[in-house]
């Protein structure tokens, strides 16, 4: 094991040196390869996110390299940021200075992406996060980070979509909100939900009830919500707590529809909450493997063929989409020079991807459709596709 590690390390080092010396291989100068960096969480606390994205990226890589881009092939340079912001920063520096990549894909989480933003901006290398949903990644304090892009929609967007779904499809007039107050993600979704729901003529009943991560007993708060008689409850949290919330809500007889965002998307939600408790609840998500769209079904088939019959989840799909988004920009730019790619990326319009038809707005956030999924006996069923 040590030997293999040693050999691969020395290979990596010499590859780095070669890339440093000979400009023929470096991405920007038009060799026969386009180097793309992948700065992902391949180990550490959120390794499953990074691994899933990489699977998606690798599938897209196989497909794109069959034809290549104007005869050139894409070469992926992977770096493990160990789910750590400081590692992510040094990994980004290594990718740019040593490997001379044309663009970087990553990281999975908002925190680890934010750690790279200044470097990408300073060195003028396009950076695309597949799943970093915090609004400040691309647009912070009234200033656009013009080299930074994302494939996923931002947090507040999901809240708006959920509010429109509740008002227009479920036709509810009153709703309660239960927030994970230790998460900016939850707060962002809740604020957007409230604004859109009230604009649609709905009323939020009760104050915003709140909990913090790792809480296990929600019965008192749920009893309080129940006494306000809402027709609908919005819980934009993560699956660990949401599973318990759903279970305890059903136990005290709070049977109205519940809804949340992509933070619910985990098989653990069903394990913790139980199949029955999750019935009559909905989530907004980036994509659904159950969508009947032919393009999506082809993707699901290809993914299953490559990864031992595994059904692709949203992280897989967004990883896959990210490389296609980048490839589309490289094709339109007709070059692998970072600044030309950046310009082309910013002009992305109506690009058909697995996670929806995508147009980037002036804050570099995608405007695309969101998928609504309904839980039916523990399965996520495709319910609707909502356009913004």
């Amino acid at each position, binding site marked *: 094991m040590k030997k293999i590690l040693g050999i691969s390390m020395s290979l990596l080092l010499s590859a780095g040196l070669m890339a440093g010396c000979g400009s023929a291989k470096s991405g920007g100068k038009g060799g026969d390869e386009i180097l793309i960096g992948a700065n992902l969480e391949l180990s550490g606390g959120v390794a499953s996110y990074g691994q899933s994205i990489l699977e998606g990226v690798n599938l897209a890589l196989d497909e794109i390299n069959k034809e290549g881009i104007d005869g050139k092939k894409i070469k992926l340079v992977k770096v493990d940021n160990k789910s750590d912001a400081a590692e992510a920063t040094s990994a980004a520096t290594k990718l740019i200075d040593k490997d001379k990549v044309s663009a970087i894909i990553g990281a999975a989480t908002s925190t680890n992406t934010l750690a790279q933003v200044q470097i990408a901006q300073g060195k003028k290398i396009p950076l695309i996060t597949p799943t970093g949903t915090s609004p400040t990644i691309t647009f912070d304090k009234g200033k656009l980070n013009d080299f930074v892009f994302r494939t996923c929609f931002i947090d507040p967007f999901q809240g708006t979509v959920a509010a429109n779904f509740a008002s227009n499809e479920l036709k509810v007039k009153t709703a309660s909100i239960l927030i994970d107050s230790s998460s900016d993600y939850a707060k962002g979704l809740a604020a957007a939900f409230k604004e859109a729901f009230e604009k649609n003529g709905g009323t939020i009943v009760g104050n915003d009830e709140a909990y913090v991560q790792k809480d*296990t007993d929600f019965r*008192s*708060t749920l009893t309080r919500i129940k006494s306000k008689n809402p027709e609908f409850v919005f819980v934009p949290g993560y699956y660990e707590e949401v599973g318990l919330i759903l279970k305890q809500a059903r136990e005290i007889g709070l049977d109205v529809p519940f809804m949340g965002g992509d933070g619910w998307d985990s098989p653990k939600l069903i394990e913790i909450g*139980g199949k029955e408790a999750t019935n009559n609840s909905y989530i907004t998500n980036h994509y659904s493997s159950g969508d009947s769209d032919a393009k999506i079904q082809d993707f699901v088939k290809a993914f299953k063929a490559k990864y031992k019959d595994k059904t692709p989840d949203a992280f897989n799909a967004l990883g896959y989409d990210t490389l296609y988004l980048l490839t589309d920009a490289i094709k339109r730019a007709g070059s692998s020079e970072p600044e030309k790619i950046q310009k082309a990326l910013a002009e992305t319009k109506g690009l058909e991807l697995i996670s929806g038809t995508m147009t980037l707005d002036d804050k570099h956030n995608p405007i695309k459709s969101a998928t609504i999924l309904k839980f039916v006996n523990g399965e996520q069923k495709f319910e609707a596709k909502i356009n913004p």
Partner: protein
Amino acid sequence: MEIIQQLVNGISLGSIYALIALGYTMVYGIVKLINFAHGDVFMIGSFIGFYSITFLHLGFFPALIISMVVCAILGVVIERIAYKPLRNATRIAALITAIGVSLLIEYGMIYLRGAQPEAYPINTLPSKSIHLLGITINSQSLFILGISIVLMIVLQFIVHKTKTGKAMRAVSHDAEAAKLMGISVDRTISATFAIGSALAGAAGVIFGTYYIKIEPLMGLIPGIKAFVAAVLGGIGIIPGAMVGGLLLGVIESLVSAFGYSLWRDGVAFVVLILILIFRPSGLFGKNFKEKV
């Protein structure tokens, strides 16, 4: 009606605290050691219950027994390795060691199996909602309350009626004199740890069955809350731990009921501070002047 429902919620939450607090208060009562690793023994108990149910396909009661036995052994091992060498050291040294043991168990567990949560199978115990005059009571919470009361009675019986119990009381009163009377102090302390840890193991399995989600750091907050409960009732007093636990659960539920759910952990510690200021020996404790 809502307020009564909230009381019911509080009692079911409080019975878990009470169950953990029983072990806490017992160990303190006998060896005057605040065993901060108690919450982590509770966590280990929960995982042992989980593996017994999912891998060995055992029912609730066999899992409960296995978990209690393993935790009893674990408690004795911890006492022998970590606390016994410090028996005659300062109180603060033992306390710091307890914190160290606690962290060792937590992060050892994360090292062994990762930090991701695990879910108990739903309905290990029948879960039925009982509707009564507009209040909903879950059959599991009744069961938990029942089991806490039964274990408390058993514990009272052991402490007051058996030979081991007599030895425990003697050691807690004066360890040196007990030794002169032919009581094996070491064995008595081991027995205390075994019983206290077995209770923590039982609480762990019950917690998993009721709250489903378990993870390596789950012992932290319930452990500290149980400590507050023990102090509230009067540390070292067994019925006090029971009442303290239930009271703490009810207080927390009422805090949430008035819409301050984010303050409930804070309020638990305010209770601890107030009790330490105004009635340091706890609700059930006798105020006595310490001999100088």
